[in-house]
């Protein structure tokens, strides 16, 4: 075949095809029907089976918070060395979950990873809900909740300003910026799809509401032109935010001189961990959603495979950071640092938590080296659950073990969460799941316009196959 040929196409004897992003050669119409159908049709029973317990769980959160605010932070298990217990752990856990969405929508967009289109909408929504859950904890941890507005940089009374040297204040800026930009980015992406829903709506109220939020979108060339430029700019703006938020969160600890907290690798290690945990949560939500709403052709094994690989990769980065921390703790020769790590892994109060973290975050994702595991939904779900648990324990291990046994042995104390903390944390899952289910109920779970854009038909040079089937199908 290559003999005497002169064009690039012929000089290469064979080609290796990419797997299609949408299976079974689906048309634009099918995609619109399937995704709008989720919103327009009646929700399956399972939606209610999930939603009602979520609301019930959400009430735990409400109760926990009301009880806390009306009584005082003393109802939590925080004690003298452990001034930050579950509250900070939960905060960082949820903030971490919130990283995958923007990573998928912004960084994968900038790197032209077309497979992101099937999962970006849901993961962005998940990001927002996770950040909401995260924001609760520091806000109520301040004690006098009604004065939380003191965090805003306004000279509130007597010229009192915030402590701009405190990493905690930077957190306020970083998280609120991240949330704002994520909301705008998510909403911007929704506009064309909201217009589709508006055009299909049969009920007047629906038509009005979808129309209101579709901002008069008509799909003209001019609209698309502006839309795509805005999308690109927001993606570029969001990308540094993905890095900055968790880096700033890591500064909360790394700027201090607490052994086990102060280590220079924290910023990239936290970011990698956040992406790791975030992807696991995306899969945890999307695999059931794919099944419930029969989205197999849109969220294909290839998507799951790619996400599993990212989990394996970022899990390995996290593993590198754990081991580098251990190595430098020893290599640095600082006895306090060594003691902190010794406490973590051998004879402190919580070595079981460390090994739980190590297994869940480093060992378990290694099964994704094998294709069979990446393609087996049960294995994927089990590993994702491990990662969800492991990433929570990672934060617990870092924050609590380092301060439960700090400088003065006389002050050492074990930290136990009280029932109030437990129900509050459980309640955030209710909030998270409840909001996610509402999102599925009212908004298109997959970005229709973006998925259509990566179909082979969207290519201006696309030829209708003569045999009636996509060459890849």
């Amino acid at each position: 075949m290559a003999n005497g040929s002169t064009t690039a196409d012929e000089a290469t004897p064979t080609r290796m095809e990419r797997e299609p992003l949408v299976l079974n050669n689906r048309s634009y119409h099918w995609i619109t029907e399937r995704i709008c159908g989720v919103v327009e049709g009646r929700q399956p029973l399972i939606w209610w089976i999930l939603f009602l317990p979520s609301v019930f769980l959400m009430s735990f959160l409400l109760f926990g918070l009301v009880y806390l605010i009306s009584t005082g932070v003393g109802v939590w298990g925080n004690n003298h060395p452990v001034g930050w217990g579950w509250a900070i752990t939960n905060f960082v856990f949820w903030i971490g979950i919130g990283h995958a969405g923007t990573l998928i929508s912004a960084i994968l967009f900038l790197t032209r990873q077309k497979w992101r289109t099937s999962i970006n909408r849901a993961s962005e929504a998940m990001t927002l809900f996770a950040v909401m859950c995260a924001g609760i904890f520091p806000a109520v941890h301040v004690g006098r909740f009604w004065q939380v507005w003191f965090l805003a940089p306004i000279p509130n009374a007597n010229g009192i300003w915030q402590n701009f040297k405190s990493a905690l204040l930077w957190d306020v800026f970083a998280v609120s910026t991240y949330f704002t930009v994520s909301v705008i980015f998510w909403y911007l992406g929704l506009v064309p799809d909201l217009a589709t829903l508006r055009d299909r709506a049969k009920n007047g109220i629906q038509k009005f509401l979808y129309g209101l939020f579709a901002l008069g979108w008509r799909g003209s060339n001019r609209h698309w032109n502006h839309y795509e430029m805005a999308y690109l700019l927001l993606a570029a703006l969001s990308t540094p935010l993905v890095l900055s938020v968790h880096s700033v969160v890591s500064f909360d600890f790394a700027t201090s001189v607490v052994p086990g907290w102060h280590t220079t690798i924290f910023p990239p290690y936290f970011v990698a961990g956040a992406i790791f945990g975030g992807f696991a949560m995306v899969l945890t939500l999307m695999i059931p959603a794919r099944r419930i709403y029969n989205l197999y052709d849109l969220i294909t094994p290839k998507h799951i495979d790619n996400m599993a690989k990212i989990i394996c990769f970022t899990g390995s980065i996290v593993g590198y950071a754990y081991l580098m921390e251990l190595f430098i703790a020893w290599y640095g020769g600082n006895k306090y640092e060594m003691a902190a790590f010794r406490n973590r892994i051998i004879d402190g109060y919580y070595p079981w938590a460390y090994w739980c973290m190590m297994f869940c975050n480093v060992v378990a994702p290694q099964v994704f080296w094998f294709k069979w595991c990446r393609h087996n939904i049960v294995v994927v779900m089990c590993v994702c659950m491990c990662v969800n648990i492991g990433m929570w324990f990672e934060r617990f291990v870092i924050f609590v073990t380092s301060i439960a046994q700090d400088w003065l042995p006389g002050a050492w104390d074990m930290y136990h969460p009280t029932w109030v903390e437990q129900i509050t944390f459980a309640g955030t899952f209710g909030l998270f799941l409840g909001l996610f289910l509402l999102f599925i109920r009212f908004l298109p779970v997959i970005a229709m316009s973006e998925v259509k854009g990566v179909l082979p038909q969207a290519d201006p040079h696309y030829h209708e196959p003569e045999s009636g089937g996509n060459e890849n199908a």
Partner: protein
Amino acid sequence: MSAHSHIELPPDGERLDDSKVAPIRKVAFAIGFIGLIASVVLFISPLREKFIYSWLFGFYYFFSIALGGLFWLLLHHATNSGWGIAVRRVFENIACVVPFMLLLVIPILLPQNRDALYEWTKELTRIEAKMHGEESGEVQAAAGASMGEAHEDHSLRHAVHLEAKADPHLHLLYHKYPYLNKTFFYLRAFGYFIILGAIALWMRSLSTRQDEDGNHKWTLRSRRAACGFLPIFAVGASFAAIDFLKCLDYAWFSTMWGVYVFAGSALNSMAVAILVTIFLQKLGYLKVVTDEHFHIMGKLMFAFVIFWAYVTFSQYFLIWYANVPEETKYFITRNTEGWHIGSSALMWVHFVIPFLFLLPAWVKKSTKYVALACVWNLIAHLLDHYLIIIPERFISLATNEEMLNATSPSFSGAFLLDIIAFATVGGLVVWYFLGMLPKRRLYPCRDPRLHESIHLTN
């Protein structure tokens, strides 16, 4: 999809005509050869101790770039990328400089040079000599050489322990002995070059074998191999940075170190790859590479400009903020006396200017401007590595008197030595690299994703 693009390609790929690079190769060789003679003279002169720092600077500069080439190559395979097939051979060749660096590392590994560079080996050598002196005084014949290193190491460790009791400064040396001992150091040092070098050669051989038969199995095999090799690369590159650079001051430590050195190496390897690609295009080759490829490579370089700044800032900031003396010593050296000018300039030269310059898309697509950015980045990398290595020279080698009388914390005239070493290593590396190019096709002409790469749009 296929009919609209006709890039005239020879069916059997492209080979570089030897004669086209011969003049440059000759110049590079002449520089390298003359430099080598000068270096040999310097190594036997009293300037030896100062010169070895210059050599380490020149050596690690080029080694870091070669390592970066290996990173991009492995990453490209592991992610099953299609865009970079047209330029992949460039990365393969850059990565294959790693085994050649084994020859250039030898001066660093020679005992007297090693001791001038690394205080920890110097101390160990001193303690060892003292120990042997005592032993021979007691007429303990050095029989039983078969007892081997293990026995010797054990007793040396014990001796370090005894020394540390008298001189508490040596406590760290005793503590770090399981890692910082000569046997393990040599094992690691050779390990980096042999293992990472073998990986580079192996990856390239898989690729060139595909040039012959076009079989898909080489693509699949490369992907699998690259995935497996990436963790080895991560460990190797990190610990090489620790052993050769961080250990210049064995008391200092930072968990970010490996990531920091890696960020600079990936960034500048991309810069070199872009320059080599432009160079080959100017010679009339690599027509498979379009401005889309330059755009992507420019974007990756841009991303790493940011990543480097992020990592460097984080490391600096956390150490500055926590203000622990064991950690701040690294930056105090570089932020005081004359060095602060370089450190302050680094922020502008390595980040602000290339960041602003590389922002617009048209800059990344224009070979002229992107080449300018690459040269700029490579100069910034020089400054970065100069500041990592050279400030340690005066601290380690200056006598008390020199310390007291110094107007600036460096040896006057030593800058010349740095230039000689850099030119020598650079000349030899360029000579070797250009020698590799004509031996293989310039791009993987039968790669099943070549087509995808040629028709790239982004």
